[in-house]
């Protein structure tokens, strides 16, 4: 009996690791190092008007979403309808970071598909994206009233992710839903 015990334990350990690996979901998804830490400060010219800026000051004092999007990004098109619905419900204000895009294309996108954003900052060079640790649009950050990042969602936002990952955190942080 004893001679089988060690191999058995090793196999069980391996199975444990494999199960964890399978349950983890997308292996390319990276946890954001900003969760629980202050969001990076930023200030960008808005998409609508280069003379006006949007930045960390606009986020202060309320729970808000920061959505990183681009016109070349298929996932952004997929989530756009849901963002419009969130905006229509007038719950959490949504700010956009238009990442690595061109103004004319981004403006046309907004015109054609609708604008869920309070304002979108235009980050053509991708500098602010790097500061936020963005590596693939769409990415959505949930930022608390104190400017701390509460959650980061990778990929298109959908009702399920919203209910499971965002709603409880928004409620806990005192945001209106």
């Amino acid at each position, binding site marked *: 009996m004893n001679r089988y015990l060690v191999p058995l334990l090793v196999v069980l350990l391996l199975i444990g690791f494999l199960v964890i690996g399978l349950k983890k979901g997308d292996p390319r998804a990276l946890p954001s190092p900003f969760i629980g830490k202050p969001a*990076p400060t930023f200030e960008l010219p808005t998409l609508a008007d280069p003379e006006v800026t949007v930045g960390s000051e606009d986020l202060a004092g309320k729970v808000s979403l920061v959505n990183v999007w681009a016109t070349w990004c298929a996932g952004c098109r997929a989530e756009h309808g849901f963002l419009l619905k969130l905006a229509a419900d007038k719950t959490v204000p949504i700010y956009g970071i238009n990442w690595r895009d061109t103004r004319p294309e981004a403006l046309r996108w907004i015109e054609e598909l609708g604008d869920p954003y309070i304002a979108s900052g235009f980050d053509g060079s991708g500098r602010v994206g*790097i500061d936020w640790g963005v590596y*693939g649009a769409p990415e959505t950050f949930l930022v608390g009233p104190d400017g701390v990042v509460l959650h980061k969602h990778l990929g298109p936002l959908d009702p399920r992710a919203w209910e499971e990952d965002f709603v409880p955190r928004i409620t806990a942080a005192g945001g209106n839903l």
Partner: protein
Amino acid sequence: MIRLLAGLLAVLIFSSAVAIDSDVAFDDPELQARYEKLISEVRCLKCQNQSIKDSNVFLAADLRREIRRLIAEGKTDAEIVEFLVTRYGEFALYRPRASGKTLFLWIAPFFLVLFGGFAIYRVVRHRMTLPIDDETDTQGAAH
């Protein structure tokens, strides 16, 4: 057909010689050497099995540009690594720094070698205690 194959082969051979990074080199060879070492050790987050030196994804180009800027500003390698880790986490580095979080990564190989060595030792020791019995061996081979 042969021409096509030869063409494909040529593409394969010569494409690897083309540098992805088309930016102008630093005037100071020492800075350029630091730059090249750094970009070969930073993971492209969008194409996770390539370094940003080998990737032509725009994110890799952006990160190269940032590293170039930081070097030009006189930042040390450690400061540049810190810049990347605060934004993208330890995963961005192909050689993670030794710290509490990555301790397991660093000690696991030694642990595995020790474990394997111990296993070999046990097996060899056990075999040495077995009686040498040529007769059963030859009989075994005959079956």
